[in-house]
């Protein structure tokens, strides 16, 4: 064990305080890089470090907060890291105070925002942090402190880089806002799950606020974290006093508040912005030689999304199964076409229905899972804050998806086969996760509960070997159809119960397998689900579209005392009445809606649900083509003309387009089911050009283009010219639409236009976006300038 970890074992570790404010007091100007002062003003930096050691710090953080290759050349970076260490080491030697002194390699945020909210790719962030850690590998730092991180994904990138490039202990500290969340939305519980899952050595909180204001967040860490908790608050809030910044918490109050949190169980304490050696001295005195407060944190099964943690021990968890192409023609077609919008709407819909986590599976022979699955995971995380259950049989795809996942995922799955254990368990160890473990092995699925339990025991032992605890395993004792074997359900249920009771572990089931081959399967599924819940089931992969399954779940919670006053059940029942009187089916607005019936009308008025319902009803009377030609297109035309004449405004135009989309979706589903080709027009490739991350306008164009029947391939935002050309060539698209918001990205647009004209002369390029004008468009050689989305549609139509 490293020196600092063994010191921490039965002592409180005292960190240092602020650096930036002290450097400014010694003459550093705003905008200067403090890290350069290691080289230009080593004596100042040494003085500050020594003052902290003298005040009582056991650890000082190197003056390397912003030292990364996004700001410095590798050569300069290496010099900074070495000088920073030397300054701290000299200070340690010069300090008058006895006792062990450690030096932490300090790593702050990259200074850039990760995608999708900024332009830094996840792997580029990992690479940048990795460079810092690699360059510091030959410098004898005692530990790495990753601090002030306000984005969960960037925190993950930094921790991953530290783990991949160094064997030093890693402490990770996040900066929470006044709302108790990270800027990107993560709660303390979500960060505890993510970071402890990935194997940080200590985790905690710094910056933003004073110790009192941070107390609620610190309490959450103390309640949930199995790891030592770190706290490095600001000296309260800054305010201007004349030409100085002063902080509103003075050393005495700071020390008393922080020491109180140490008494509650914080093990590593120091100060951040505004704190000085006086604060640390006061804190050292307030803590004295107090022994650490021991905490008991019961290990729990917890997964997380990019914002929230989900504890499987609080109540059984429903995992939506709909993002899995097996047996789903519409989804299969969408995945193959790269139609992300459909997949995303499936994610959002399952969440609305009550799914608490979502299974994500892209297992199709036509797809390269290793590429598609991580992209799918990233895209789905932009539309839902539910934790994901990453479902693949390919270990490489699993690794790629777990790597980019923002949170601690459910890993679906490992089994008792040696090969599977060896491939999957190291991934769970590295990226964190709760892994679903199927009770089958090389010999197949045992017929008896005893046999399945035996495999579970073996998996448990193998996991232990990797340091994966029982709380991170979710055994799946495999539901098999009772249609083939009358004992199937009984054996599975017995296994659920014995794994819960004898192994003290959690279980999960793919419930609907039990009824395979039977009619009206929901009856059987719901009954089986209730039986499994009562035997201790922790999670089910199920269809959230099934009211019977949801009903079984809600009723179970109420019956099991987990829904006080049956409040949730009552709310569920109100939304899902068993049998509503026919006349009342439409609710109070029924009369009005009857008068407004008609698909065209629904589209014109921008009523989404109504448009879908009307399309469904009318499909039984009219062929799809006619429906589109007679109802949808004329309605869209009327709205479009209204917009062109300035009578209809953009929000209404979009509402109509969305209503038409909803109707199209219904028609498309019917056509796929009937293996009919939906009527289509030309291929259109759309992209926001390289360097530009704005896509609201482009999304509007896509929506309208799709409405008018064009087959749109949307390449997204920040798309390199070559990638646009590739798509145009591959799809032989006669039309390509490019969007740019900024003057700075017009050159990228110009390059794209040129490339297409050179190598795909059959393709006409439409350009648009905030900065574009007819003049600009002519200058860069575009074929058409569209001032708004409707103009783009009209031009594309004119080409046919």
């Amino acid at each position, binding site marked *: 064990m490293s020196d600092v970890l063994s010191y921490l074992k039965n002592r409180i570790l005292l960190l240092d305080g602020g650096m930036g404010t002290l450097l400014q007091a010694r003459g550093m100007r705003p905008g200067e890089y403090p890290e350069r002062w290691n080289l230009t003003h080593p004596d100042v930096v040494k003085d500050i470090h020594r003052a902290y050691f003298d005040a009582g710090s056991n650890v000082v953080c190197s003056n390397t907060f912003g030292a990364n290759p996004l700001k410095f050349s590798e050569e300069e970076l290496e010099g900074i890291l070495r000088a920073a260490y030397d300054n701290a080491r000299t200070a340690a030697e010069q300090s008058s105070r006895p006792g062990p002194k450690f030096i932490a390699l300090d790593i702050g945020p990259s*200074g*850039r925002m990760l995608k999708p909210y900024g332009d830094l790719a996840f792997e580029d962030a990992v690479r940048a942090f990795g460079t810092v850690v690699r360059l510091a590998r030959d410098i004898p730092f005692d530990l790495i402190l990753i601090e002030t991180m306000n984005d969960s994904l960037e925190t993950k990138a930094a921790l991953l880089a530290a783990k991949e490039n160094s064997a030093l202990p890693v402490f990770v500290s996040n900066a929470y806002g006044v709302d108790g969340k990270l800027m990107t939305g993560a709660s303390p519980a979500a960060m505890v799950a993510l970071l402890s899952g990935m194997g940080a050595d200590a985790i905690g909180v710094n910056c933003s606020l004073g110790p009192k204001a941070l107390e609620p967040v610190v309490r959450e860490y103390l309640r949930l974290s199995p790891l030592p908790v770190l706290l490095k608050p600001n000296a309260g809030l800054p305010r201007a006093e004349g030409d*100085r910044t002063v902080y509103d918490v003075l050393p005495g109050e700071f020390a008393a508040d922080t020491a109180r949190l140490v008494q509650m169980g914080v093990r590593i304490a120091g100060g951040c912005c505004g704190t000085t050696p006086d604060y640390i001295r006061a804190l050292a005195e307030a803590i004295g030689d107090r022994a650490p407060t021991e905490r008991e944190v019961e290990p729990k099964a917890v997964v997380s999304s990019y914002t929230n943690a989900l504890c499987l021990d609080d109540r059984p968890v429903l995992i939506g199964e709909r993002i899995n192409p097996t047996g789903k023609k519409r989804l299969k077609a969408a995945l193959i076409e790269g139609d992300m919008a459909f997949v995303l709407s499936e994610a959002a819909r399952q969440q609305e229905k009550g799914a608490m986590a979502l299974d994500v599976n892209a297992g199709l022979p036509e797809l390269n899972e290793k590429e598609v699955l991580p992209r799918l995971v990233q895209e789905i995380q932009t539309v839902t804050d539910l934790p994901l259950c990453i479902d693949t049989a390919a270990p490489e795809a699993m690794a790629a998806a777990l790597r980019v996942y923002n949170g601690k995922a459910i890993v679906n799955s490992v089994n008792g086969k040696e090969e599977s254990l060896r491939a999957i368990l190291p991934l769970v160890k590295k990226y964190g996760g709760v892994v679903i473990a199927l009770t089958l092995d090389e010999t197949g699925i045992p017929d008896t509960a005893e046999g399945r339990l035996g495999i579970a025991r073996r998996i448990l032992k193998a996991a232990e070997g990797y340091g994966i605890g029982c709380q991170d395993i979710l055994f799946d004792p495999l539901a098999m159809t009772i249609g083939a074997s009358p004992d199937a359900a009984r054996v599975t249920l017995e296994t659920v119960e014995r794994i819960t009771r004898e192994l003290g572990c959690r279980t999960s089931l793919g419930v609907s397998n039990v009824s395979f081959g039977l009619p009206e399967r929901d009856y059987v599924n719901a009954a089986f689900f209730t039986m499994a819940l009562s035997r201790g089931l922790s999670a089910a992969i199920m269809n959230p579209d099934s009211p019977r399954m949801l009903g079984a779940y809600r009723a179970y919670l109420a019956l099991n005392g987990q829904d006080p006053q049956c409040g949730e059940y009552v709310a569920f029942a109100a939304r899902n009445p068993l049998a509503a009187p026919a006349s009342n089916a439409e609710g109070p607005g029924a009369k009005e809606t009857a008068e407004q019936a008609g698909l065209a009308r629904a589209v014109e008025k921008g009523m989404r649900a109504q448009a879908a319902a009307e399309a469904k009803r009318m499909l039984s009377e009219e062929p799809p083509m006619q429906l589109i030609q007679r109802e949808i297109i004329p309605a869209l035309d009327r709205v479009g003309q209204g917009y062109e004449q300035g009578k209809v405004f953009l929000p209404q135009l979009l509402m109509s387009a969305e209503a038409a989309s909803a109707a199209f979706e219904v028609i498309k589903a019917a056509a796929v089911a009937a293996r009919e080709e939906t009527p289509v027009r030309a291929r259109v490739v759309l992209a926001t050009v390289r360097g530009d991350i704005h896509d609201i306008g482009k999304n509007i164009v896509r929506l309208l283009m799709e409405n008018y029947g064009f087959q749109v391939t949307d390449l997204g935002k920040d798309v390199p010219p070559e990638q646009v050309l590739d798509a145009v060539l591959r799809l032989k698209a006669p039309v390509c639409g490019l969007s740019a918001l900024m003057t700075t990205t017009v050159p990228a647009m110009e390059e794209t236009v040129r490339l297409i004209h050179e190598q795909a002369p059959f393709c006409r390029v439409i350009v648009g976006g905030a900065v574009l004008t007819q003049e600009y468009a002519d200058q860069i050689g575009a074929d058409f300038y569209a001032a708004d989305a409707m103009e783009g549609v009209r031009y594309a139509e004119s080409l046919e």
Partner: protein
Amino acid sequence: MSVCICTKEYAPPPLNVKEALRYAGGRGDTPTPELQEAWELLAPALRYSVCWARLPVQRKEDVLDLTFAQTPSRDLQRALLGCEELLLTAATVGLGPDRLAARYGRLAPAKALLIGAIGTERVESLLDVFAREQNGRLQQEGLRLTPRFSPGYGDLPLQLQAAIIPYLDTPKRIGVVLNESLLMSPAKSVTAIIGIRRTGDILKEKSGCDGCRRKDCEFRR
């Protein structure tokens, strides 16, 4: 001279419905149900932060020395006519609008449009509140603020962002970072240069629509 960079969180200013609708390409000043819905989604996800520094400004031949940078921009020189100081300002309403726009951009573009429009109105209203507060303070010194001017206006290049962001240390202070394209994340962030002028100076100052050279704008008042 040591420079003080201040940071402050503000309470939400009242929503200017007319402006929000205008940014969405709509008209009127009564909230539509769709706007109301977007506002209810967005409001809890916003936080209002400003950081600023009060700096001297000097003219050196054809160049304006703004303390944090120098620029030959003629338009900025006009805007800062008679000013000896300026407030270098950065404001943001946080990442909430980015997160919600990403969520709804694919599923419900109309909602994403309205969220974006409200976000723009929010950060502009935040700067209005900030300017009113500063004006109140400056009045005691016989000073007042000019209209705000941002990189990208007129001939003031966007490149100036690369000097403003590190100078104000916005990544650490208010969570605003610069992308390679020189745009900021969170997207609903604004940097501005606001001149400080003697109250007595009577200058033919054009602000708002009068100060704009684009005469064919449909939103011209």
